[in-house]
């Protein structure tokens, strides 16, 4: 702070550091591993875990009832065959994308502020992909036959239709899940070794020891490890873009009005990152408070994430504008009619709520006071999450209820099972996060040590 800027500036805002000063290798190790190894389970954790576990029970009941009765318990019908299942699928998978973006793209760009948030953002990715994958699976109606979607030499001589975006989706989402898991696990190996060496109870030593696979921090190992990690980051970056592109193809390849448009891939990817960053904020703000991690997840992180939200939100706004523009410019009467339906149809209140949540409210993030106000950011992140859910609802439901022929028009209203299943996945996601912070290091300890070396100046 003592160095003055080289110009006569009237008001230079000091930039918060990515790690508060005064930390050593031992102190970051102690502080992060203490959350799992020494701290007693807090009452808040037990309450939170119980609540989310209850929601998981709701999910179990909903899925069991679905399997017993069939997809008719949902509000889906003809023409709206997709309903909540696909809305939720796209919403969850989009949320996952910020985790990969933070861990891979910001790593390639050498952004130091990613270090303390990448681990739990990656965990968030995995749990979100798990929730996302559940929906198409149960939406098939016969989830025990889902293996039909994978190519295997069946006695019927059948093979998947590789020209179908739905099969692309199977490959994109399963590859994404696998690569995210690998990336997360590779990042965890050194920290698991730390846990192995620091845990006192024998069962924990054995479990962490098995997971750490005998990692001992050898320089030759680090040498190869860094190559592998860099390569994984380089592979995950185009992967994350491809996954949401393929998800958007599920819509864009079809000829349904409002879906058949070339803006979908970039606008879906931007929307995914937008909602993902909102979810990272939703998780980071309570997490840093509950476990006193304000030294590691600083104001700098929160503000940077707010800026990313603002930027991707503007791309999304451009996408909305472009959808409108193209339907008017094309002169296609079906597209024009669909746009009218968005503004004046039976679901127009969803569309206006979407504009309010995703475009208008986030403009407050231009103001620095809002970006650095933690409660405001938290509320903003919830609003954006809601807005992104509404976006998928508008895309799926409004288009399907206003197809080409009036005889094919219809309505959709969700049933209690639709809401119960969705709430159940929210519970599953949050419960997995609760478990994660109690059994694994929520912040990468090895990378924090690296940051200590770079910032505190072990160099004289």
């Amino acid at each position, binding site marked *: 702070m003592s160095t003055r800027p080289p110009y006569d500036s009237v008001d230079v805002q000091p930039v918060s550091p990515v790690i508060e000063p005064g930390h050593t290798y031992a102190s970051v190790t102690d502080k992060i591993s203490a959350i799992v190894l020494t701290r007693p389970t807090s009452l808040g954790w037990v309450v939170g875990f119980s609540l989310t576990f209850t929601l998981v029970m709701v999910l179990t009941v909903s899925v069991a009832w679905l399997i017993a009765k069939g997809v008719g318990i949902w509000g889906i019908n003809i023409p709206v065959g997709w309903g909540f299942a696909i809305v939720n699928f796209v919403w969850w998978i989009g949320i996952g994308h910020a985790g990969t973006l933070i861990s891979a793209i910001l790593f390639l760009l050498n952004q130091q502020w990613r270090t303390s948030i990448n681990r739990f953002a990656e965990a968030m990715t995995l749990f979100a992909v798990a929730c996302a994958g559940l929906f198409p699976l149960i939406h098939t109606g016969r989830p025990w036959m889902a293996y039909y979607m994978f190519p295997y030499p069946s006695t019927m001589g059948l093979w998947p239709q590789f020209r179908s975006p739905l099969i692309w989706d199977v490959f994109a989402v399963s590859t994404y899940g696998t690569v995210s898991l690998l990336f997360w696990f590779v990042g965890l190996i050194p920290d698991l070794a730390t846990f192995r060496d620091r845990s006192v109870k024998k069962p924990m030593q054995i479990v962490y020891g*098995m997971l750490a696979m005998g990692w*001992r921090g050898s320089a*030759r190992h680090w040498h190869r490890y860094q*190559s592998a990690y860099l390569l994984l980051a380089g592979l995950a970056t185009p992967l994350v873009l*491809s996954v949401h592109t393929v998800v958007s193809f599920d819509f864009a390849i079809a000829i349904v009005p409002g879906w058949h448009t070339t803006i979908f891939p970039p606008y879906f990817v931007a929307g995914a990152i937008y909602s993902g960053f909102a979810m990272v904020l939703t998780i980071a703000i309570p997490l840093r408070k509950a476990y006193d991690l304000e030294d590691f997840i600083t104001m700098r992180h929160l503000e940077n994430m707010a800026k990313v939200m603002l930027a991707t939100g503007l791309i999304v706004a451009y996408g909305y504008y472009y959808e409108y523009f193209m339907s008017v410019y094309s002169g296609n009467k079906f597209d024009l009619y669909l746009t009218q339906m968005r503004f004046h149809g039976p679901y127009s209140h969803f569309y206006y709520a979407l504009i309010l949540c995703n475009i208008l409210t986030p403009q407050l993030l231009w103001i620095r006071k809002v970006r650095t106000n933690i409660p405001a950011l938290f509320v903003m992140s919830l609003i954006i999450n809601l807005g992104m859910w509404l976006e998928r609802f508008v895309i799926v439901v409004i288009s399907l209820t206003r197809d080409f022929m009036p005889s094919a028009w219809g309505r959709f209203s969700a049933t209690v099972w639709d809401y119960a299943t969705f709430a159940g996945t929210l519970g599953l996601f949050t419960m997995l996060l609760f478990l994660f912070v109690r059994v694994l290091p929520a912040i990468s300890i090895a990378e924090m040590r690296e940051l200590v070396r770079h910032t505190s100046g072990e160099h004289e």
Partner: protein
Amino acid sequence: MDHRSHTYGVVAEFETAEQLIQAAERTRSAGYRRFEAYAPFPVEGLSEAMALKRNAVPLITLIGGLAGGLGGFFFQYWVSAMAYPLNIGGRPYNSWPAFIPVTFELTVLGAALSAVFGMLALNGLPRPHHPLFNVHRFSKHATSDRFFLCIEARDPKFSLADSARFLQGLHATHVSEVEDD
């Protein structure tokens, strides 16, 4: 010479990454070849100090990616044009642009799997036990806040007394023998 059978090497402990880098450089210039540095995080400059060669992980990843991509593409070709051809309005069986998304995903999958498993295999992991874990200070600090350098007994220049004295001269805070088991 007979200590080789039950001695793995001699290990020195350092407080900072800079000391470890210097120690690695000096150990190398003293003629030792079979030695290894240990750090709780990837230390920039350590690979250079130890004169580590480029590793094979990128090549393995490339091969895995190519195998995944080519295998994925030709598998789709085989399925769509040979095993289960569907004539849809006379469109070509080998409709290759439609095969690109899956080809891309399988390229990434093949590359990522081979990067991770290649890295683990080259590192000889999983290996739950290692002689260095017999050293109490190593298992307590190597994965948290201290830096270690171990000269192994298989180094032709190794001698327990001389190597230990050499390491002591490098500002090591502790030097101890590593027992093999």
